[in-house]
């Protein structure tokens, strides 16, 4: 057991956990002031319920011994039993619990990401139930496929360094399905729905950027040169994602915006996620840039196709994840991580690209379909959507009996 590696993975687990409050602010700043607490709450509740579900059963489903076909783990590790024998199939020089913690943080932020799609119209009880079922039915299987050595995708040769499928494609396509089930916000797309506090969003973006070092470089599960490369790549892809988005804004005739800078950086980091420890620095620049430009274009899709993905989870995480997975098939090279593979541009031929494409298609399809079913069922049984009156008044007062900001006419002027 290496103290250095353990320090790195524990620190990274902390960083990834910190991303979820960061996401809460990133999202919170983008919505209107009467809905901000609701979206923050949807992120925080994931920090609550997912943590519990993860140690009780989720970890076992994702990383337990394969239950058959590489599709899902068995229940052998339920309640974290038998963990002292290590994580099946993995050779870690860190305490198994450190790995459990690190992966727990991924399981937390993924459903929280989905909340951005359906922002400003969900009933809190419905969201709560949805998340629990979604975790077990959608997240755990996909995590098993891509992250567990016995998962059918990982075992088959697909690479995903830090969650391009498990976190990004998964959240993006799941958000799309959820958005279709719950329908558009009242007034969309005609009413203006400007972000109520961009400084909050930029703060959130800063936290996400910081935390993403743990997310990607921590996924090396060691403090070594792969981790260093992953960290550098994360930074570079964020940088070129940011630049790509701003340049595209200028080319489209507008000004460079701060929301664009934040969005582009996130898009770049999304795209580098599956590739972070498998590609060199120069390809990382390209991957980030491609994501910055393409995700900006993908945002416009929703107007064409008339689905109301409030905070563009599909465009940024779904499409960004696809871009990253495919470009990983192009740029991967064993010279960075010998445990990786060579992609198209590194003389590895089309094999890896094929594996990556298979991963993309299967994870996207499963996430979309399974989430559609889960959302439909929860909507029927519990109800996912607030009433029109509550939507107009705002989710904060109607779902949580709170107001985000108390100035005039605030509770200060109320009586007890």
């Amino acid at each position, binding site marked *: 057991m290496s103290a250095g590696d353990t320090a790195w993975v524990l620190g990274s687990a902390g960083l990834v956990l910190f991303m979820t409050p960061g996401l809460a602010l990133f999202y919170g700043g983008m919505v209107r002031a009467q809905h901000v607490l609701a979206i923050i709450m949807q992120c925080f509740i994931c920090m609550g319920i997912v943590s519990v579900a993860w140690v009780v059963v989720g970890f076992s489903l994702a990383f337990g011994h394969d239950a058959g076909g590489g599709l899902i783990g068995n229940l052998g590790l339920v309640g974290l039993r038998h963990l002292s024998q290590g994580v099946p199939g993995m050779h870690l020089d860190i305490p198994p619990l450190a790995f459990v913690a690190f992966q727990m943080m991924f399981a937390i932020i993924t459903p929280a990401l989905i909340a951005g799609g359906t922002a400003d119209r969900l009933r809190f009880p419905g969201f709560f139930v949805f998340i629990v079922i979604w975790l077990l039915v959608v997240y755990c299987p996909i995590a098993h496929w891509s992250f567990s050595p016995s998962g059918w995708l990982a075992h088959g040769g697909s690479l995903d360094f830090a969650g391009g499928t498990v976190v990004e494609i998964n959240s993006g396509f799941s958000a799309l399905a959820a958005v279709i089930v719950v329908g558009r916000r009242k007034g969309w797309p005609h*009413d203006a729905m400007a972000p109520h506090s961009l400084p909050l969003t930029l703060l959130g973006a800063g936290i996400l950027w910081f935390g993403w070092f743990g997310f990607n470089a921590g996924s090396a599960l060691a403090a070594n040169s792969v981790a260093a490369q992953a960290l550098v790549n994360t930074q570079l892809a964020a940088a070129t994602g940011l630049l790509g988005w701003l340049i595209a804004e200028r080319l489209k005739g507008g000004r460079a915006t701060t929301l664009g800078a934040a969005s582009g950086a996130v898009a770049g980091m999304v795209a580098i996620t599956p590739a972070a420890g498998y590609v060199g620095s120069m390809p990382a620049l390209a991957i980030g840039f491609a994501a910055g430009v393409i995700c900006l274009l993908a945002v416009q899709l929703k107007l064409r196709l008339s689905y109301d993905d409030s905070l563009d989870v599909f465009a940024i995480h779904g499409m960004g994840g696809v871009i990253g997975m495919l470009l990983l098939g192009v740029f991967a090279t064993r010279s960075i991580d010998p445990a990786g593979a060579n992609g198209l541009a590194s003389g590895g031929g089309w094999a890896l690209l094929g594996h990556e494409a298979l991963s993309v298609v299967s994870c996207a399809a499963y996430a979309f379909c399974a989430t559609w079913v889960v959302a439909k069922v929860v909507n029927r049984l519990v109800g996912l959507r607030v009433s029109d009156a509550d939507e*107009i*008044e705002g989710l904060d*007062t*109607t779902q949580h*009996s*709170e*107001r985000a900001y108390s100035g*005039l*006419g*605030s*509770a200060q*002027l*109320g*009586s*007890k």
Partner: protein
Amino acid sequence: MKLVTAIIKPFRFDDVKEALRQAGAVGLTVSEVQGFGRQRGHTEVYRGAEYTVDLVPKLRIEVLVADENADALVGAVIGAGHTGKIGDGKVWVTHLEEVIRIRTGERGVEAL
């Protein structure tokens, strides 16, 4: 010259503004206010302490208008601000002694 003042529900603003324009208003001034009236407020709870908030967010619109147009603007506000639910607000008309445009010093109807 008259001043038409209206208290409306915030989410009706776009429609009211459009209606006022079509009724001939060339400008208006609007501010955020809180209203107390028949419409119920809501309850807030912070660590178990319950506050009954009986103030409701509203917008206050002021439109300067020539005497003969006042009725039309009042009508426009009523037409567009109306939802039929409690809390739609009020509109009232005041007589003004003088209106001047700061930029030019024009007075009366010229100032609009």
